[in-house]
């Protein structure tokens, strides 16, 4: 039984790939046929691949409805705009937050007219509230990202 050498194998692989994709030109078709007739291993490989080709040729993605394409840019544009809005909003929230904290420290915490108990109490309240907010926010974000059942309708 004749065996392919390394160069022939490389050549056959290219021809087989093109054959699978119906891309062989007339010369290549002749070369490919020669391989199939002269080398049983080539004929066997082609038979195997043909059965795979038969199935993959029937597997094409479904087309979404026309509305999906009509709305595609519109939806992407909205996302772009919303992303920009979020950046501006976050920047504003950060500046206001920083100002409130600064005012809270310089005007309230160091004011000796405010009873010490009230200063401690409000500090704990603020720190606790902030910690709770961050914890809930983190949990929500984490769940949204990792929840394996999020696509299941409840």
């Amino acid at each position: 039984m004749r065996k392919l050498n390394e160069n022939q194998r490389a050549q056959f692989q290219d021809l087989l790939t093109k054959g699978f994709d119906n891309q062989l030109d007339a010369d290549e078709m002749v070369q490919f046929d020669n391989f199939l007739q002269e080398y049983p291993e080539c004929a066997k490989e082609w038979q195997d691949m043909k059965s795979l080709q038969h199935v993959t040729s029937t597997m094409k993605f479904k087309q979404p409805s026309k509305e999906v394409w009509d709305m595609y840019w519109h939806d992407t544009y909205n996302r772009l705009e919303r992303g920009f809005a979020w950046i501006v909003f976050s920047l504003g929230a950060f500046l206001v937050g920083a100002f409130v904290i600064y005012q809270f420290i310089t005007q309230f915490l160091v004011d000796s007219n405010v009873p010490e108990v009230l200063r401690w109490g409000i500090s704990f309240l603020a720190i606790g509230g902030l910690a709770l907010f961050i914890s809930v926010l983190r949990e929500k974000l984490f769940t949204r990202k990792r929840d394996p059942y999020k696509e299941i309708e409840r």
Partner: protein
Amino acid sequence: MQATIYSEKVKTSMVKAMASERDLILRCQQGDKNAFGTLVQKYMQRAYYSALGFVGSHDNALDLSQEAFVRAYRAIQKLDANRTFYTWYYAILRNLCLNFKRDTARRARSFSEIGEHSLRTIPDQVADTSRGAELHELQSAVWNGLDKLNEKEKEIIILRDIQELSYNEIASTLDIPQGTVMSRLYNARKSLRAQLDGKF
């Protein structure tokens, strides 16, 4: 002679297309959202089907392909205007899809859950019901086999066999030479065939 004229025509139209894409990218870099809209409309179908190949569900593919466009727009200043937009965009989309898959990997998804809803059947090949059922079983086996391949192998089979991109389009999308496309396709199909051993 005629072939030379034809290839010159093809070359000229490719140069024109590249020039107009370059112009669009430059306009995007100056903040022109309409220019970006033209790029989105040009590539949205390819982007959606690529994402569908990775994640297998319509909603997620739509969401991820749009998110990738948003990220591309935010980073458009980094894109060299002489490069093809889609090659650059595809790298963003690919990363996004692979991250998404990694995050949802705990729930393995079968053909009946994904493939059946994403794939259409070619009518003339399923003329009778018994053949239809048999084909459905084979498609299921191929889909599950695809899922067992590594990402590069799965990706190239989906681009070629399911999305039906040409070798040239695949080479440009993945930014690899055409010879590599062919050898990668050969190896990927061989691996898939090995996964399916005994099923055909």
